């Protein structure tokens, strides 16, 4: 029996037309399938649980109780998450830009600073949170260094504002932002700033008119990642925040571990809401991106 497809063998005879044996689709498939399968099944299970369709015991019943029964707390958690994420992102972006500027202007022999930034990115957030707690709490290092007694020190850890949480996120993520900005601008930075200097721009104008505008696309992308990370982070507000109000991940995990089985839909509702907030932020950013890129392109 002739092999299948023998009739068109003339057309498909292997030749030098393509450098690969496998088409790209098959190369990308395992990664894409895994991402879709794992995130898809995980999210589907969370949404189904939040709607009462996957109860631990008893019969599935479609209900929005998970969202409505504790809607006041859920809204407070959304607000707390947004406050933390917005403050962390603004600080991380601003400070990250500053760190990037210093890294790009480094003279030879200052390479270690870049290594320090990479090390900060590599520190696990739970370690960062533990350390920031030991720095900013009433008995922490900072009040000791400043000679302020624990009683007079503001409640930065576990107080009414998520100060320590925001400091930890801003600290680690500013190093991340800086490395992204450096990676994106390093190649053109020297030529652009030198040209600007030749044209008579002082350091201030070289920063504001050349470095910052060229850094904006990378800065925006990195800021989006910081924002969605801050919405999703559990360990930092769990260690450094107060019990009430709590951000979405802390609320979700607390309810999920509750002995009250009825709390599971509410936990899943908080998790679903967290995912919605993050996706919404990403969609908004993607919609705003073309306009931002156009404005950045105008500088060059």
């Amino acid at each position, binding site marked *: 029996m002739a092999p299948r497809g023998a009739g068109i063998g003339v057309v498909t005879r292997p030749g030098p037309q393509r450098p690969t044996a496998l088409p790209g689709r098959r190369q990308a498939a395992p990664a894409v399938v895994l991402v879709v399968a794992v995130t898809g099944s995980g999210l589907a299970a969370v949404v189904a649980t939040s709607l009462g369709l996957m109860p631990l015991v008893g019969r599935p019943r479609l209900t929005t109780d998970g969202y409505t029964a504790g809607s006041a707390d859920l809204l407070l958690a959304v607000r707390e998450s947004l406050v933390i994420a917005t403050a962390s992102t603004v600080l991380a972006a601003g400070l990250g830009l500053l760190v990037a500027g210093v890294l790009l202007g480094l003279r030879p022999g200052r390479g270690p600073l870049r290594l320090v930034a990479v090390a900060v990115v590599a520190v696990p957030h739970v370690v960062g949170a533990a350390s920031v707690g*030991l720095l900013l709490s009433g008995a922490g290092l900072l009040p000791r260094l400043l000679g302020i007694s624990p009683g007079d020190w503001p409640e930065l850890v576990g107080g009414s504002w998520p100060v320590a949480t925001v400091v930890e996120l801003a600290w680690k993520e500013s190093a991340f932002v800086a490395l992204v900005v450096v990676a994106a601008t390093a190649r053109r930075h020297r030529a652009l700033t030198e040209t600007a200097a030749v044209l008579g721009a002082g350091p201030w104008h070289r920063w504001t008119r050349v470095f910052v505008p060229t850094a904006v696309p990378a800065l925006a992308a990195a800021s989006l990642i910081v924002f969605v990370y801050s919405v999703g982070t559990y360990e930092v507000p769990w260690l450094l925040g107060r019990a009430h109000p709590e951000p979405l991940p802390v609320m979700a995990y607390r309810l999920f571990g509750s002995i009250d089985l009825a709390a599971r839909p509410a936990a899943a509702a908080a998790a679903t809401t967290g995912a919605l907030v993050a996706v919404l932020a990403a969609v908004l950013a993607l919609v705003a991106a073309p306009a931002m890129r156009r404005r950045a392109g105008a500088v060059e």
Partner: protein
Amino acid sequence: MSAVDGGARRRRTGRPAVHALDVAVLAWLVVPVLPLLVWGAASRWSAPAVLPQDWGWDGWRSAYDGGLVPALARSTVLGLAVAAVATPLGAMAGRALGWRELRHPAPVALVLLAPVVLPPFSVAMGLDVLLLRTGLPGPVAVVLLLVVLALPYTSYTMRAAYAGIDPELEEQARTLGATPRQARRRATLPAVRLGLLTAAGLAFLVGWSDYVVTLLVGGGRLVTAPVLVGATAAGSGNEAAVAALSISSVLPLVLALVAGAALQRRREERA
């Protein structure tokens, strides 16, 4: 402003204002970990003393007793497992994207970015719900989810690596008589070695430093170094042990970074 401008004229790259900025940036990056470094060598350090009353290694002893070594071993295994799966998958996808071998690259690029956007705790909670029903072992689910979280880093690193080399390279190897497999192994993979190393390092980092996925999926039975840090830091009066655990889970990474930087410098000097 005038001081900055005056300094700039004196020497183009040696502005005095920037020295202060260098110091401020270094302080911002380093000060948050200072408490850990001091606590790591303190046995008693009650407020408001600026320096410990008793120096010593008590924290290390209690960290050891609390299971530091097995936790580090578990973190290492977890990091290696994540890297072992996420690196080849990311390399394959990165090759398809970097060499423009896809008719519709946008959906693939978007799917591979999705894990960065979705909060890990949401997906992890769903997987934990599914574990009860499917009987999938917890550690397997932890690795699977962490691989997914690592894939954006590995695939985009490898996309950049493949975009930097010419697909012709593999074609030439084929012309010289290599099989497709030989061409990939002997020509292409060595050319993207640095990308592979970076991708594997990033994937290892995802597994090594994860907290919430390890905790949520499988009910926290997998006690890795970060899980131990979190559990210890949540208690009170064990600052020295927290410091010892934290230093142990960061030091290997810092040493690897320094070694990597030194290697790169040697490579650049040779080039």
